[in-house]
C-alpha cells in the first residue's frame, strides 16, 4: 500500500471512529490566512470589518504556509485529553478523558498530502519565515515518517505515540471553557459607576463604570475584551500569577485571538488583604463579602478601535462594543457564546516552577548569599515560552519591586513590535498579549530584522552589551525610588526571553546567549522531537544549558563550553496545549498586528508623569495615512545628524538614492550619545565621522553610543543638495509618524533603516472606505454625507496613484515575491 494511500486510509478510519462531539470542532476551527501578504484583497478586508457580529470569519481562498502548520498541529492536536472546545452548545461540556484515540485535528485536511499544497515553501517576509519554519522542517519529516510506520497498527484504541507523551502529565485542572459563576445582582454582583468611584476616593485613572464581583472558592470567571481589574479583597490568580488586593489596578487585555485568562480566587491562610478604599464603596447589605472581591472597570484605551478594520483579520477580536453587562469592552463568558473562546490553561509543571522561585534573599543551603535571580526561558516555537516568561515576570513582581526583561526574540517582541533586542524594566504586572502592552525600553538596539540569520554578529554583540548594562547599571541599582510596598528593591531580577529557533544557527546563538547571560535558572520546554528520541539524560554540554537533539556533542568546538556553573538550575516545562488559535493566526499575522497597532498609539506615558497614571491609549479612529506627521530636518547641524542604513544589500546604496531608500520606510529612532574620549586621534575620527550624515557600512557601530528609542515611519522625504557645497553634505527634511512622546523625541538625533521590516500593506491604505470606518468618520469630523461621498470618489479616483502599489495586474515571470523551498521533496525520502 503506498504511503499516501495508507495515510488517507488511516485518516478516514480515524475520522469515522472519532467521537461525535469532536466533529463539532470542525466548524469554527478553520485555517485562515487573514492577511494575504502578496496581494491585498480589498474586498475581503472590507467584509471583515463590516461584520460586527461575532461569527467566525469565512475560510479563505488560499491557505499558504498554514498548510504546513496544519500538518504539524494536526498531530499535536490529537493528543489533547481535554481538547479546547468551541462553545457550540448550551451546556458545559465535560470532556471524556478515557478515550485516547489517535485523531487528526478536525481542521486538518482529510488527505494530508494534496497536490496543490504550498506547505513546503515559505512565503512573504523571507526573514520572518525562515525564522518560523526552520523548526518545522525536521519535525514534519519525523512525523511523516512516524505516520508511515504506525499505520499498520493503527486502531481506534491505539496508544498515543511518543510525541503524545505530553498527555502523560495528567488531566488538566480546568476543562471548562466558561465561567463557573452565576451572577446574582446584589449578592455577588454589584454595579458601580464612575462617579461612585470618584466619591470613594479612587484615583481617576481613566477607567469608566464598573462592576464588583465576589467569587467564592470554586468559582472562576472568564472575561473577554479589555478591562481594568482591581482586586478588592483576598487574592486572585490570573494567568499564573497572583494579585492581592492592595488597591492597585491592573489593565487586562483578553482578545479572542489569544487564550483568555481565567480569574480564580486563591486560598491563603494568611490574613486576607483588602483594598484601602473598600469600605468607601458602600456595598449593599446582602453582598457576599467573604468571597474574593474584584472590581472590573471599563478600560477606555481605544484599542477596541481595531474593529474599524485597521488590521484585517483582527476586526472581531474585541467582540462587540458593549458586553452583556452593559459595560463597554467587557464580555463575561457566562454560559455559551458564539465566538470560539479558549481559556488559558497552564500545565501543572508551570505552577510548580513558578512556586519554586526564590522568595527571599536569605542564604541558601550552602550558606552563600543567593545570587541575584537570572532566569532564562528557552524552547521551540509555539511552546508557550513568551507566555511563561510573562508569568515568570509577573510572579517575580509579587516579591520584587522591579523586574528586568531581556528580549532576545527579534521576531516577536514582548514589549516592542519586533526587530529590537533590549532591556526593559517593569514595575507592574502585565496581563495580555504583547501588542497590548508596548513599553519604552530602558536600553535597546535596533537590528531591523525579524531573524538574526542575517546579522548574527551584531545580534550577539548587542546582547552582550545589554547584559553588561544590566549587570552594572540595573541589577543592583539603587537610583530608582525606594520601595513603598515592602517588596525587595535592592536587586532587580532578570528574565530572558529567547527565540524559538533552536536548531542550526539558532542553537549556536542560543548557546552564546546562555554563555553571556549565565542564568541561574533555566526553564526549557521539551520539543516533541526530543521526546521522540527518548532522550532521558540531559547531556551536559556547555554547562547543561543547551541540548542538541540529534547529536550528543556539538559540532564546532566552543571555547566557553568548559564553564560549569553549579548554581544553574534546570527546570523542565511542558508546552502549552496547542489550540485552534494557532491555526487561525500565524506569527506573521501577530507581527502585522503589533506593528500597526504600535503606530496607532496616541500616547505613550511620559517618564516624568506621575507613575500612577501610566496608561497607553490607541487611536484607531483614522487610518495612518491621515495622521498628522512631524516634520524634521536632517543634515549637518540639524536635528537628525545621522542616518544609518543596515541589512541585506545596504552597502550598495548610494547617497543619491537616499530619498528612494527611505521614502515610506520604517526606521528606528535612535539617540546618539556623545562618547567623550580623551584620545585625540579618536576625537579626530569622531569628528570626521560626524560630518558624514549617511552611513551604510555594515560594520558594527559602537554600541555604547547608540540607544534605540522607538520606531517611526517616514511618510515623505525630500533631500536638498546644493552643488557647490561639500560632497558629503546631505540635507533635507522628512515627515515622520511616530507614537513616541515629546521628551523621547527630544533625545532623538539619528535614524536606522533596515529594509527587512516593511510597513504592512493594510497600513498603507485608506480603510476608511469600509462601512464601519465611515460611521466614525462622520461623527468625528462632522462631514455631511455628500461631502464625504465626494471625498470617497476623489480618493477612489486617485487609487491608481497609490505609491508602492502596482495596479496593472500584469503577471511576469519572476514577478512574485521570493519563496524559499524548504525541503527537496525527493521521491522516496
Amino acid at each position, binding site marked *: 500500500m503506498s504511503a499516501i494511500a495508507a495515510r488517507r486510509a488511516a485518516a478516514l478510519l480515524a475520522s469515522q471512529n472519532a467521537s461525535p462531539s469532536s466533529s463539532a470542532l470542525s466548524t469554527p476551527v478553520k485555517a485562515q490566512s487573514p492577511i494575504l501578504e502578496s496581494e491585498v484583497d480589498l474586498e475581503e478586508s472590507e467584509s471583515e470589518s463590516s461584520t460586527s457580529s461575532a461569527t467566525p470569519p469565512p475560510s479563505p481562498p488560499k491557505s499558504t504556509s498554514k498548510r504546513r502548520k496544519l500538518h504539524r498541529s494536526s498531530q499535536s492536536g490529537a493528543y489533547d485529553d481535554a481538547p479546547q472546545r468551541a462553545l457550540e452548545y448550551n451546556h458545559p461540556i465535560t470532556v471524556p478523558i478515557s478515550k485516547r484515540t489517535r485523531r487528526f485535528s478536525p481542521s486538518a485536511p482529510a488527505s494530508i498530502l494534496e*497536490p*496543490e499544497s504550498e506547505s513546503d515553501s515559505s512565503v512573504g517576509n523571507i526573514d520572518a519565515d525562515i525564522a518560523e519554519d526552520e523548526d518545522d522542517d525536521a519535525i514534519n519529516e519525523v512525523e511523516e515518517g512516524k505516520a508511515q510506520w504506525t499505520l499498520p497498527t493503527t486502531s481506534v484504541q491505539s496508544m498515543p505515540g511518543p510525541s503524545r507523551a505530553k498527555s502523560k502529565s495528567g488531566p488538566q485542572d480546568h476543562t471548562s471553557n466558561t465561567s463557573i459563576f452565576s451572577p446574582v445582582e446584589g449578592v455577588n454582583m454589584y454595579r458601580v459607576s464612575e462617579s461612585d468611584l470618584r466619591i470613594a476616593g479612587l484615583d481617576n485613572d481613566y477607567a469608566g463604570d464598573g462592576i464588583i464581583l465576589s467569587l467564592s472558592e470554586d468559582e472562576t470567571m472568564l472575561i473577554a475584551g479589555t478591562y481594568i481589574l482591581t482586586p478588592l479583597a483576598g487574592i486572585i490568580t490570573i494567568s499564573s500569577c497572583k494579585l492581592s488586593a492592595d488597591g492597585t489596578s491592573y489593565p487586562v487585555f483578553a482578545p479572542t485571538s489569544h487564550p483568555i485568562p481565567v480569574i480564580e480566587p486563591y486560598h491563603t491562610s494568611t490574613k486576607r488583604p483588602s483594598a484601602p478604599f473598600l469600605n468607601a464603596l458602600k456595598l449593599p447589605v446582602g453582598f457576599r463579602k467573604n468571597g474574593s472581591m474584584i472590581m472590573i472597570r471599563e478600560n477606555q484605551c481605544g484599542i477596541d478601535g481595531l474593529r474599524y478594520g485597521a488590521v484585517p483579520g483582527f476586526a472581531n477580536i474585541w467582540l462587540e462594543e458593549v458586553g452583556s453587562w452593559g459595560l463597554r469592552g467587557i464580555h463575561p463568558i457566562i454560559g455559551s457564546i458564539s465566538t470560539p473562546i479558549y481559556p488559558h490553561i497552564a500545565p501543572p509543571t508551570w505552577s510548580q516552577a513558578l512556586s519554586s522561585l526564590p522568595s527571599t534573599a536569605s542564604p541558601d543551603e550552602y550558606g552563600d548569599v543567593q545570587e541575584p535571580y537570572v532566569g532564562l526561558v528557552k524552547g521551540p516555537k509555539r511552546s508557550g515560552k513568551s507566555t511563561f516568561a510573562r508569568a515568570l515576570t509577573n510572579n517575580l513582581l509579587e516579591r520584587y519591586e522591579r523586574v528586568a526583561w531581556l528580549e532576545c526574540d527579534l521576531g516577536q517582541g514582548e514589549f516592542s513590535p519586533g526587530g529590537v533586542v533590549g532591556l526593559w524594566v517593569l514595575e507592574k504586572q502585565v496581563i495580555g498579549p504583547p501588542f497590548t502592552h508596548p513599553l519604552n525600553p530602558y536600553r535597546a538596539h535596533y537590528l531591523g530584522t525579524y531573524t538574526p540569520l542575517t546579522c548574527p554578529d551584531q545580534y550577539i554583540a548587542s546582547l552582550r552589551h545589554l547584559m553588561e548594562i544590566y549587570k552594572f547599571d540595573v541589577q543592583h541599582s539603587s537610583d530608582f525610588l525606594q520601595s513603598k510596598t515592602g517588596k525587595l528593591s535592592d536587586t532587580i531580577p532578570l528574565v530572558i526571553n529567547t527565540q524559538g529557533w533552536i536548531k542550526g544557527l539558532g542553537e549556536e546563538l542560543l548557546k552564546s546567549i546562555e554563555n553571556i547571560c549565565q542564568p541561574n535558572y533555566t526553564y526549557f520546554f521539551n520539543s516533541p522531537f526530543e521526546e521522540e528520541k527518548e532522550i532521558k539524560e540531559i547531556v551536559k554540554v556547555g554547562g547543561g544549558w543547551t541540548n542538541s537533539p540529534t547529536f550528543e556533542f556539538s559540532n564546532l568546538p566552543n571555547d566557553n563550553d568548559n564553564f560549569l556553573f553549579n548554581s544553574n538550575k534546570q527546570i523542565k516545562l511542558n508546552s502549552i496545549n496547542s489550540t485552534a488559535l494557532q491555526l487561525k493566526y500565524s506569527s506573521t499575522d501577530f507581527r502585522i498586528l503589533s506593528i500597526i497597532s504600535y503606530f496607532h498609539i496616541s500616547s505613550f506615558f511620559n517618564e516624568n508623569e506621575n507613575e500612577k497614571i501610566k496608561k497607553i491609549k490607541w487611536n484607531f479612529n483614522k487610518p495612518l495615512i491621515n495622521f498628522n506627521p512631524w*516634520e524634521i530636518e536632517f543634515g549637518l547641524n540639524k*536635528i537628525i545628524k545621522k542616518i544609518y542604513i543596515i541589512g541585506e544589500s545596504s552597502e550598495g*546604496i548610494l547617497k543619491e538614492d537616499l530619498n528612494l531608500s527611505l521614502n515610506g520606510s520604517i526606521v528606528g529612532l535612535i539617540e546618539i550619545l556623545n562618547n567623550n574620549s580623551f584620545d585625540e586621534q579618536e576625537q579626530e575620527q569622531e569628528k570626521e565621522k560626524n560630518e558624514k550624515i549617511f552611513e551604510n557600512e555594515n560594520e558594527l557601530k559602537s554600541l555604547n553610543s547608540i540607544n534605540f528609542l522607538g520606531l517611526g515611519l517616514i511618510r515623505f522625504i525630500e533631500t536638498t543638495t546644493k552643488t557647490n557645497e561639500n560632497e558629503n553634505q546631505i540635507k533635507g527634511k522628512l515627515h515622520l509618524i511616530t507614537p513616541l512622546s*515629546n521628551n523621547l523625541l527630544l533625545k532623538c538625533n539619528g535614524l536606522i533603516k533596515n529594509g527587512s521590516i516593511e510597513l504592512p500593506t493594510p497600513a498603507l491604505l485608506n480603510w476608511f472606505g469600509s462601512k464601519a470606518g465611515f460611521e466614525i468618520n462622520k461623527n468625528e469630523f462632522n462631514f455631511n454625507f455628500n461631502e464625504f461621498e465626494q471625498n470617497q470618489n476623489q480618493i477612489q479616483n486617485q487609487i491608481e496613484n497609490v505609491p*508602492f502599489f502596482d495596479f*496593472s495586474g500584469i503577471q511576469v*515571470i519572476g514577478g512574485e*515575491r521570493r519563496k524559499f523551498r524548504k525541503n527537496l521533496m525527493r521521491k522516496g525520502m
Partner: protein
Amino acid sequence: MKAPKRTPWASRSELEELYEMLFAPNADDTSRRRGLARMSIYISSPSCPTFIHLLHSLISVELLPYPPKSIEENQRSRMMIGMAIVRFINGLVDPLQNGPYARPISHLAATLSIPPSLISLRHRATHEDLPPLPLLHQSLLSCISYLHYYSFLPLISSSSSSNNIPSGIAEKLESDKRKIEGLTKKWKKITKSRLREKEVREEDQSAIELRKIKKLLQGFESGLIVDVLLSKGGIVPLAIEKRANFTSISPTIPSLKIWLPLLEHLQESSHPDFINQITSKILDILLNPESHVTDLNADAHDNEKVKEDIRTFRWELAVWLLHFWNTENNSTMTLQNDQKVDFIKRILRALLELHDDIVVRQLFKALQTFESSLKELGNLLPDINNQKEIEEVGLKGLEVDMEENLIDLRKMEVRLKQFDQILASRNSKIKTNQDNDRILHNTSSVHQLPQSDDNSPPGWRKLSDDIWKPCYIGCNGIIS
C-alpha cells in the same frame, strides 16, 4: 478590480528609470552600476519580485572585468558566473515546485521558456566541472536578456496604462507601429488586387509579396499589430458603405477574404494568442465608446455623418468578434470557451451603463442567438430609444419608461429616509460614547492639535491641518 500588488518602488516612473539605467540603448557600465545601486534598495524589501534579485546578482557579475586580467581572476569569474546562473535558474524554477514530489527542473524550465542550454549549463556548474569562461559569459548575457524580455519588458510596456514610457521604448514602439501600418496597407492593396483579378497562383509576384509581408509581421509584438489593425485603415473598410450591415452578424465576404488569411497566419505561426488578443481589444473598444470616439478624432456631437461613421465602424468590429465567436470549435481561429465566458461577463457588466448603446445591444442580441443561456437576460434590459433603422416605439413606450423611472426614484427616496433614520439612531449612541471619550481625553491626542505647540521638542514641527492634508504614504501632503 484586479488585486493590487505591493512593490518596493514608489511609482512606475521609478521602475522605468531603472530600466533606462540597465537596458536603454545607451546604457553602459556606469549606468549599469547605477542601476545596481538602485536595485540594492529594492532587494532589501520583502515585497521585491524575484526577478529583481536575480537581475541584481547577474548584473553585478556581469560587471566583472571581461576578459579577466589574471588566472586567479579567471577562476574567480567562472565561479561567480556559475553561481549566478545556478541561482538564476533555481530562483525561477523553485516556486513552481508545488507538487508532493520534486519535478525535474528541465520540465519546469520548459514551461517558462528557459533555453535548454541554460538548464544543462546549470547542471554542469552544479554537479560537474565548471564550464569554460567564454561559454559562461555568453550564457550570462542570455540570462540577462531572458529577464529583460520576459520579466522587465512586459512590466514596463503595458500598452494600456503607461503614461511615461521611457523615450527609448516609445521611439521604438512608434517606429514599429509605422512599419506595421505600412505592411498592412500593402497587404490590403495587394490582396484586393488579387481578388479583383481573381488571381490564385501562388508563384505570382503578388503572392510572393504577400508571403513576405506575413513573415515580416511575425516579428512584431502582437499588441501593436492588433492596435494597428483595429484603428483607421485596418480591418474596417474606410468607406462606410463597404462596412457590414447593421442586421448582419458577419463581416462582409470581401473583408473576410482580405483579412482572414493574414489573421490565420499570425495565429498559427508566431502569435498563438492572436485571436484572443484581437477579440479582447475589440471588446475593449466596443465597451468604451467615449475613449474610442476620441481615438478616432471625431467630434461626435456635431455631424450626423460622423456619428454614422463611428457607429458603423464599431459595428464592423463587432461582427468580426461575432465571426470568431461563431467559428467551428475545431479550427484554430476560434475563441475558447473560457474566453467566451469572460467576454460575456464583461458585456453584461458594461450593459449596466451602456444599455442604451445600440451597437452593444445589437451585439448582445446577436450573441443571444449563439448562446441560449443569455436569452432570459435579455428581458431584463430596459427598452432603449430606438433609432430609425429599428421599429419605432410609440409614446406609450416612453410613458412606461417615465413611470418606471419615477417608481425607482420613489423607492430610492424611501430607502434614503430609512437609512437616514438608522444613521440618526446610531449617531446618538456613538455620540454619547464619543462624549465620554472627550471628557477623559485630557492629554492631547494626535488628532486634536493645539494651535501653538509649546511642548513639541525644538526642531520638531507637527504639521497641523492648515498646512498639511492627508495623503498616501510616500506623498507630500503639504498644502502649497
